[in-house]
């Protein structure tokens, strides 16, 4: 029997959740034995090679590319898991939701105290993914099957969750592993 395939991505996140996955220490050898990584920053595969058992989503959706990647994950993964507070709530990037987008861009590219931009132009090249009106948690864009909150979720949380999902057991985290910070 072939190994279950796992795909991961970081949308509007900081890669902290991926770092937390690496924080499982020597158990990563065990993980490499039981799964095959497909599209993931861990092996630098840019696109899916085939359908995956589990997809791990770090980060919320802040731009059109995030939405595109998230929809692709939903299409290609049997079980989709939101990993971390950005995916489950929007997280720190969602602080911008409290400020109108126009003001946000002006502060970043025109009015900010350290900004040097004589043309006063806000980047609008079609190559740059279009920003959304606000940052959305993943489950407000596609169906998400499980959520692992935390900033980041601890290595033990990720390990427990992956083991449960890969062995087909119900995912029930013990109290100490469900945290929002």
């Amino acid at each position, binding site marked *: 029997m072939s190994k279950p395939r796992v795909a991961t991505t970081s949308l509007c996140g900081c890669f902290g959740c991926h770092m937390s996955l690496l924080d499982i220490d020597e158990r990563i050898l065990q993980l490499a034995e039981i799964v095959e990584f497909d599209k993931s920053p861990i092996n630098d595969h840019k696109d899916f090679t085939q359908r995956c058992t589990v997809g791990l989503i770090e980060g919320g959706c802040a731009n059109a590319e995030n939405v595109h990647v998230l929809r692709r994950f939903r299409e290609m993964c049997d079980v989709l898991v*939101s990993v971390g*507070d950005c995916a*489950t*709530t*929007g*997280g*720190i990037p*969602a*602080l911008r*939701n*409290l400020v109108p987008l126009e003001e946000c861009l002006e502060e970043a590219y025109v009015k900010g105290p350290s900004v040097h931009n004589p043309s006063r132009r806000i980047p609008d090249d079609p190559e740059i993914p279009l920003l959304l009106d*606000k940052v959305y*948690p993943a*489950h*407000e864009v596609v169906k*998400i099957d*499980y*959520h*692992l*909150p935390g*900033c980041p979720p601890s290595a033990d949380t990720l390990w427990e969750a992956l083991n449960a999902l890969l062995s087909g057991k119900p995912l029930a*985290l013990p*109290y*100490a592993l*469900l*945290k*929002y*910070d």
Partner: protein
Amino acid sequence: MSEPSLILDGREIPFVPGQTILQAAEDAGAWIPRLCHKPGLEPCGSCRVCVVRANGRTVSSCTFPASLGMVVECDTPDLLAMRRLIVEMLFVEGNHFCMSCEKSGHCELQALGYRLGITAPQLEYQFPRREVDASHPDILIDHNRCILCARCVRTSRDLDGKEAFAFVGRGPHKRIAASAGSRLRDTSADVSDRAIDACPVGALLRKRVGFSVPVGRRPYDAVPIGGQEVGR
């Protein structure tokens, strides 16, 4: 004559006349989840987290008096779902950024989320625009985190004898205010007020003392609010 009793989830428990359902349950060792309720304050029943069914009616157990032979349901799947939904609504209608909040690990709203096993809300986040009043030299109000439990209002009025806090506005515009709308620094609110400690979330805070307890040793890191978990 034996003392009066009621039935809580099929179990007969005694109560003292005048007690609420929540108090009677607590004396019998059954902790009903709650948020706006705080011992020593007059119950106000505003958060509805302590919802139970008493003789078939859904009521807030912190305000509803216990009565003879009353049949109370608390740990049923539908009441649990209701309780979870109430807590989820409190999360989505404010701006609760747990990962950067000084109150994280000490927050009763967060602790209820943990106890009820909430991993993400089913409802859409509202991201309302709210103010922070940091005008006072020693304390601040962050309206983003306020859940309108009225604990500070009641504590200031009944225990501090000050009325430093009040509600203004109605419906979705309702918010906590310092002495009916003035800035916090222009009021009698003081860093030693018991009202500051009464806040269950990170809305009313002392300045310069955050993050003093390391992660892992905070009150709700290992032990659920209300003690060991019973069901969820």
